[in-house]
């Protein structure tokens, strides 16, 4: 099933729930109508998870950011090859030793000497921007898969209800285990930006082990219970997505605070 077909699946879930629930009702029109009314909201429940953005859009943004980031890479502790134009700064600094006077001293002290730390810290901020869009792409890709999984499991559970046995099923919320994670640039501690070392960049670049994807078990005796569990699973999925997006937002905000609080670490006097 493609994500684009999710709403068709939702309507199928609704139709099947109605059909299974009406199976034993015979010609009792009032109860048949009541059953239809009971499941009328199923498409709307799925609609809440049918508008997740296309992950490809975020991957395109990530590719654009990656291109820009390459320009800021010194190759020193970074995960991209060095920009040779940056590598030439050593020769430039040597030629500037003849330049004297207060402007020369200011430039040397405030820019040239701390420049290796500045450029690493600037790069680290760029990495956070890159990681954030990669993480967002993965969150939406997994959230879309999880929404499809809820619909598929619901159809299987409803099919099992026809056999009048209690049915059990699990939904694995893969969005919780997004591999791509993003951490704020560290301002304090051994690998902090303040130390100006490559360790801070390494910390931002370090792959974070994925969390465990929780497998949530559901069980139901009849289509009414199945659909109630479906509504619950959709609420859980929305909660997990919110949680993951909040984690990305927190890393972005944390890095923003670092830049605001300590602009001198980035050469932003």
């Amino acid at each position: 099933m493609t994500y684009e077909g999710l709403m068709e699946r939702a309507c199928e879930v609704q139709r099947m729930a109605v059909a299974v629930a009406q199976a034993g009702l015979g010609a009792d029109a009032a109860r048949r109508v009541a059953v239809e009314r009971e499941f009328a909201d199923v498409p709307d429940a799925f609609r809440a998870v049918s508008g997740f953005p296309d992950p490809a859009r975020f991957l395109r943004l990530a590719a654009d950011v990656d291109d820009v980031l390459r320009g800021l890479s010194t190759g020193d502790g970074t995960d991209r090859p060095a920009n040779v134009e940056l590598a030439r700064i050593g020769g430039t600094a040597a030629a500037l030793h003849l330049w004297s006077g207060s402007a020369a001293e200011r430039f040397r002290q405030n820019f040239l000497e701390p420049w290796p730390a500045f450029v690493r810290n600037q790069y680290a901020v760029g990495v956070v921007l890159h990681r954030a869009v990669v993480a967002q792409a993965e969150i939406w890709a997994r959230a879309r898969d999880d929404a499809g999984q809820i619909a598929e499991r619901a159809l299987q559970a409803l099919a099992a209800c026809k056999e009048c046995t209690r049915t059990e099923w699990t939904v694995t919320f893969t969005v919780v285990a997004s591999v791509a994670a993003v951490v704020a640039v560290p301002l304090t501690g051994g690998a902090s930006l303040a130390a100006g070392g490559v360790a801070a960049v390494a910390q931002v670049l370090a792959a974070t082990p994925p969390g465990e994807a929780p497998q949530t078990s559901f069980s139901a005796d009849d289509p009414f219970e199945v659909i109630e569990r479906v509504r619950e699973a959709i609420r859980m999925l929305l909660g997990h997505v919110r949680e993951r997006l909040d984690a990305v937002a927190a890393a972005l905000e944390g890095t923003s605070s670092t830049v605001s609080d300590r602009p001198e670490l980035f050469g932003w006097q």
Partner: protein
Amino acid sequence: MLGVEIYRLWRAGRVDLPALAGVYRRAADGFGSVRHDDRQWCALRAQLVSVLAAAEGQIEEAAAAVCVAAAEYARADAAAGADFDRLRAGNAEGPR
């Protein structure tokens, strides 16, 4: 100061520093042109663009000052050369 040293200084101000400023300009423009609708992402991106633009400004300012300094050193050297020529002409007979 040797002519080659003044040339190196001039070249740093005229070629190398502007090239470095160009790296920062392209990075600032590049980040600035990425379109995203995430509020926190855009806020951090705006800060980074400001950081990079400030660096570009500092480098361009230094580049201009270096070019002026190189020109002054060359003029001073030319004046020193003229003085040397004049002094040497006044002692044309050399040591006795």
